[in-house]
C-alpha cells in the first residue's frame, strides 16, 4: 500500500524504521520489523545508514514485503550514479515495492569506508525529478520505458535547522519535483516543530514528524553535539540520567508518547526511528495515543 493512499484513507500515517545488519543474515532485522508491523502503516529500511556498509535496503525491503509488511525503501544519492539509481528504482517496482524515500545520504567520511569515492551524481531534488520521470515512463536521458514503475516518492526535511529558509526552499523544490510526503529529522521540542509547521503546512504535502526515542542521557548529549538540527531539551536528558537502566525504555517511550501527543494534531504522521529498540514501538504508540 502506498503511503499516499494511507494519508487519503486515514488522514494520518505512522511508520517505523529498521536498519539492515552488517552481514548477510536478515533474520534479526525481519524480527524487528515484525515486532512493529502491527502498529505501523509501513516500515522504512535504511540505506547504508550513517554511511556504514550494510545489507542492502532494496533486498530487505523485498523481504519485508514477503512478510506482508509494507516497506519504505530508502534510497540515498551517496553511493550510486544515475544509472544505478534509476535501475534500482525500476528494480524496486519490479519487486513490488511502492514507497521510496529519497535522501542525500550522510557523507562517507562519517562512515566506515571514509576513503570511498563520493558519487552524489544526482542530488535529492534531481533524484526526485528523475524518479518522477520514470513513473511517467521516461528515463533521465529522455528514453521511453517499456513499462513505467508505480512509485510513491517521499523526501526528508530538517525542521530544527538553524537556517530554515534554505530548508523551506529545498522542501518546495522537492515538492515541485514530485515528493508526495516528508519525514523529518528527529524532533524533541514541540514548540520548534510547531514553528516549522506554521509555514510547512501551507505546502500542502503530508509531513511525518520524526521521533527517535532516547536510549540514554549520553545518546542525547551526543546528538546535541553532533546531529544538525537536533536539540534534546535538558529536562529530557536529566530525566534519562536519573532513570535506572532497567526502566529507561519505559521512560523513553513515555517521553516520546508525550511529545507525540503534543505535536500529532499539527502534522499528518509520525515516523518512529527506534534505532534497534524495535520492541519500544508498541509502548510509544500507546503512550502517544496513536491508532494502529
Amino acid at each position: 500500500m502506498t503511503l499516499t493512499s494511507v494519508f487519503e484513507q486515514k488522514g494520518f500515517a505512522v511508520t517505523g524504521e529498521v536498519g539492515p545488519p552488517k552481514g548477510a543474515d536478515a533474520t534479526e532485522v525481519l524480527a524487528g520489523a515484525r515486532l512493529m508491523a502491527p502498529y505501523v502503516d509501513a516500515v522504512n529500511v535504511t540505506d547504508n545508514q550513517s554511511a556504514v556498509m550494510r545489507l542492502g535496503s532494496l533486498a530487505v525491503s523485498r523481504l519485508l514485503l514477503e512478510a506482508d509488511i509494507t516497506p519504505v525503501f530508502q534510497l540515498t544519492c551517496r553511493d550510486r550514479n544515475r544509472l544505478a539509481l534509476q535501475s534500482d528504482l525500476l528494480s524496486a517496482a519490479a519487486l513490488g515495492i511502492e514507497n521510496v524515500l529519497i535522501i542525500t545520504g550522510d557523507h562517507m567520511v562519517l562512515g566506515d569506508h571514509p576513503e570511498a569515492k563520493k558519487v552524489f551524481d544526482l542530488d535529492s531534488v534531481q533524484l526526485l525529478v528523475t524518479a518522477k520521470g520514470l513513473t511517467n515512463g521516461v528515463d533521465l536521458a529522455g528514453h521511453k520505458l517499456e513499462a513505467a514503475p508505480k512509485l510513491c516518492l517521499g523526501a526528508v526535511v530538517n525542521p530544527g535547522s538553524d537556517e530554515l529558509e534554505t530548508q523551506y526552499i529545498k522542501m518546495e523544490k522537492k515538492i515541485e519535483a514530485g515528493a508526495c510526503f516528508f519525514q523529518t529529522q528527529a524532533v524533541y521540542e514541540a514548540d520548534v516543530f510547531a514553528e516549522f509547521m506554521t509555514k510547512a503546512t501551507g505546502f500542502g504535502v503530508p509531513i511525518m514528524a520524526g521521533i527517535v526515542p532516547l536510549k540514554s542521557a549520553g545518546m542525547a548529549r551526543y546528538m546535541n553535539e553532533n546531529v544538525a538540527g537536533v536539540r534534546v531539551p535538558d529536562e529530557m536528558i536529566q530525566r534519562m540520567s536519573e532513570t535506572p537502566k532497567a526502566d529507561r525504555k519505559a521512560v523513553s517511550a513515555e517521553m516520546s508518547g508525550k511529545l507525540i501527543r503534543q505535536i500529532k494534531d499539527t502534522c499528518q504522521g509520525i515516523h518512529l526511528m527506534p534505532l534497534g529498540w524495535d520492541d519500544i514501538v508498541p509502548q510509544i504508540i500507546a503512550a502517544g495515543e496513536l491508532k494502529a
Partner: protein
Amino acid sequence: MHATIQKPLEKILAQFGEGEKVFVVGCGNCAAKCRSGGEAEAQAMQQRLEARGVKVTGWAVPPDGGSLCKLSLAQQLLNVDHKDATAAADSFLVLACGQGIHTVIDATEGAATHPGCDTIFGGETVTDEFITEYCSLCGDCIAEQTGGLCPLTLCAKGLLNGPCGGASEGKCEISKDRDCGWHLIYERLKALGQLDRLRQYQPPKNYLKSGGPRSLTMRGKQAEFAFASGSQTAWSGTEPAPAVSAEGDQS
C-alpha cells in the same frame, strides 16, 4: 594554479631502484609558489636524497618563473641547459604537478619519471602562504546561479539544489572546521539580492565534460575543447565567427 605538496621522503625513496641515478626537476611557477618544487626545494631535495645514499646527477627548475608543464621550456631545460646531468641520470624525480610529470616524459621522449609531489587541487593564491580551492575544473561552469561560488567544490557532497540537512551553524556535517558551501552561497546570494536563484531547479550536471583526458586546441581566435565524446568551440573575435568556427557543443 595547480597546487602540489611534496610526498614524504620515505615514499620518494621507496620509488627508486638499487643504485638508480636520479635528476631532480622542479617547476618555476606553481610548484615554486607551493614550495614543493622551486629552486630551493629542488636543491634541498638533491641534498636530502644524497644524505640517504641516492646518487643525484643534478637538479633544475625552469628560470624566471617558467612552468615545467610548458613543453618548450622543459625541452630547453632538460635537453640543452642541463644536457649532461640529465644524460647521466636513469630517471627524473619530478617536483611538480602531474602535468609536469608528463611534460618531462614528452620532453625526454619517454624517460623514466617518479612523482615527487601529490597534485592536490587547482586553487586561488590568496596570499603567498595560503592557496585554496574554489573550482573543481569540471568543464561546465554553473557559478552564475550561485553568486560565483561553486557548489560542486564548496559543498562536501557537491549538491546543486541547496544544502543537505547536515549543516549546523554554517558548518559542514563532515567537520566543524569546514564551512557549509551552501551556507556561503546563501549568504552571498542574500548580499547580492539574488536569493530567488536558490529556488531555481538545477538539472543534473553534464559529466561528459569532466572526464579526462581532455584537450584544448587554439586556431587563431577559435578554441576547441575536446572531451570524452564531444567537443565545445568558442570564438573570441570581435568580428563574426566563420561558419566552421560556430560556437556551441557537439556530442
